[in-house]
């Protein structure tokens, strides 16, 4: 089973600390600095969204150059191998993979960004002269044995890493609760029978 990051939306306060931690970690690891987790706010819902690490990952299936691979328990983008064709971003059902490049702003004489497109343009269509893009998506901070930085950074513990062990213990807990619910039903029936007996004048044991 793949590992993935799960979120409890009622705990999310929309602070964006997950995105900052994601940026910081990847930049230090020498990878694209773009955050791979985004806070989405709409009406009644606030949630951090990121890659689901699909078992049958469409991004991996469409990649023409084999730059997306299934490592042990997650789906990984090889940034050096990616050609920036954006096919993966098109097929991702969650909008969790997108192109990103390192801007030349601030480098050798270029002091600031000179935008050549409106920000309302889909990030699948944007391009900046001289900027080579590659796909970025959540890699569960595989460069760090301590695990995903967003999970440890979240101030309200709204994020958690679901692993095979945690997943099966969760399933175990659910089965136990289901069994217990049946127990409650049995208890309820017994109670109802006792009440009926009492009403009929029988003795309550």
């Amino acid at each position: 089973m793949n590992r993935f990051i799960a979120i409890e939306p009622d705990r999310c306060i929309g602070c964006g600390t997950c995105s900052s931690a994601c940026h910081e970690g990847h930049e230090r690891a020498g990878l694209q600095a773009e955050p791979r987790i985004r806070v989405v706010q709409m009406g009644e819902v606030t949630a951090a969204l990121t890659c689901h690490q699909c078992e049958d990952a469409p991004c991996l299936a469409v990649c023409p150059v084999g730059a997306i691979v299934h490592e042990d328990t997650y789906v990984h983008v090889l940034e050096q191998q990616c050609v920036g064709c954006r096919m993966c971003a098109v097929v991702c059902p969650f909008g969790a993979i997108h192109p990103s490049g390192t801007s030349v702003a601030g480098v050798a004489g270029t002091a600031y960004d000179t935008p050549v497109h409106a920000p309302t343009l889909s990030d699948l269509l944007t391009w900046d002269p001289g900027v080579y893009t590659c796909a970025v998506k959540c890699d569960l901070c595989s460069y760090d044995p301590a695990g995903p930085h967003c999970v440890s950074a979240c101030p309200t513990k709204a994020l958690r890493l679901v692993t095979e062990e945690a997943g099966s213990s969760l399933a175990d807990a659910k089965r136990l609760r289901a069994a217990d619910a049946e127990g409650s039903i049995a208890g309820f029936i017994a109670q109802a029978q006792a009440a009926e007996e009492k009403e009929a004048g029988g003795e309550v044991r």
Partner: protein
Amino acid sequence: MCSIPGMENAGCVFLFGYNPSASHPIVARRIVRAKEKGAKIIVADPRHIETARIADLYLPIKNGCNIAFLNALANCIVNDGYADKDFIEAHTNGYEQWWETIKKYTPESVQDITGISPADMHRAAEMYATAEPSAIIGYGMGVCQQRQNLKTVHTLAAVACVAGQIGKPNSGLAPVRGQNNVQGSCDMGCLPNMFPGYQKVTDPAMREKFAKAWGVPVEKLSDHEGYKLTDMVHLANEGTLHCFYNYGEDPVQTEPDSQGTIEALKKLDLFICEDIFMTQTTMYADVILPGTSWGEHEGVFTASDRTFQHFNAAVPPKGECRHDWQIISDLSTRMGYPMHYDNTKQIWDEMRQLCPNFYGATYEKMEGTGHCEWPIPTLEHQGTADLFPGGHFNKPDGRAVLIAHDWEHPTEMPDEEYPLVLCTVREVGHYSCRSMTGNCKALSLLADEPGYVHMNPADARARGIRDGEIVRIWSRRGSVYSRADVSDRINKGAVYMTYQWWIGRCNSLTLHAVDDVSHTPEDKFSACQMERVADQQWAERHVAQEYADLKARLAKEASAQDVEPAVAFSASQEPDRILV
């Protein structure tokens, strides 16, 4: 008047004009925990803020209705039989007179002003007044930055008294501050009418005490109240104020009507700034004194809930930078009053001797992660989490005074020409005037210039504005460009901007109107209009260029300090010699 950790243990948390997720995520976390522990959450805010999502009752109030809303809430508490008659009888004065005003404010009579249905108002009254074991009202700048701000605080305090939700653990009011150490600067006497420890300058006994401690004749200490920051502009304009010493502030960015502020600064004979970066304010300074940054100094902060916390320096000051207390000591010495301290502890201990309420807050108690919540009058005292225990208030007879006020409309109401309400708010991520966090790349990735103007989809549609586009917003004071953030969490007819953006600077638009007593500006309400910029590509380049130009101007101003590397090196070795 409770502690912030205590918010988790209340039966009800009522947020009024306060958005903790944006201004204090750490408090927002406490509220999430309170909810998980079973507390009822009530949110009254024009916007559907983060906490409104987990609220048991969300009240979408109209902008500028505060006193009308609270009076109607108080009216419901009394008329629905939730008033705590024993508490009112035993611990308050002035109920009859208070009720004379409040009885007029039925929820029906003010529904047009508040936008809240009578049914919801009755529910809120019940949920708040009947909460067990206690209820807390958390309020922030949505109360303080309004025309009737002090009056709103009177009204809030009366609501808590009448409902009996004060004077017991984890109850009462939880006023939060707009910045991390506003409470501390007030505690230490950075107020025009107070010595440290809230001891009035108009009180001869206090002047006597401080004059004796500081070894000066009592006539040397001013016997009247000084001016407030928001008075600076008109005092400079009328020529009463000649010199302004500005301390780690960027009033051009953070005070209302930026253009008015700039013109006033230019009129001063002498303008001194103490800061760590060149800002839009320090640009106009005659003298800039280099202070130390948050990582370089140590001292004591006070949190919103009166908690003193000691913090340590991570690195020593660089170059010519010196601690604020060293600069003040040197300045004082050169102006004829020799002042010398070896460290902050000496200053703190002197202050403790002079402030009875802080006397027990020693550095020893604050060691490590220790903290002290004042009042802490003796060395054995462990601090006070909740004020007014047992309903004993700090009045001569120990009783609270209930005060009611009539609602007045905000100063500048929307009209045909300026149909939108502009309300200034906070965003999570960047801090205050952004002079510090604007230099942080991780935070710039989350949000960057020209900033955002948050609006309802209907207001956006009516002007052909799409999410993410650049818009122009203007008022009677000025005009700026910003980026549209269209969301159904925003109420119709109002737009929200954050005062931290340099290009989309909302204070170029805000009205300089202040409360009569506190002189706090009415940042939450001015009238404006906006439109979509037709050529979006031009607009994108324009705002990027403006930002780059501004940064270049700041860098040019700052370049005056550039010196030969050899001189800079010797300066870093022997900072004292260079400064003398």
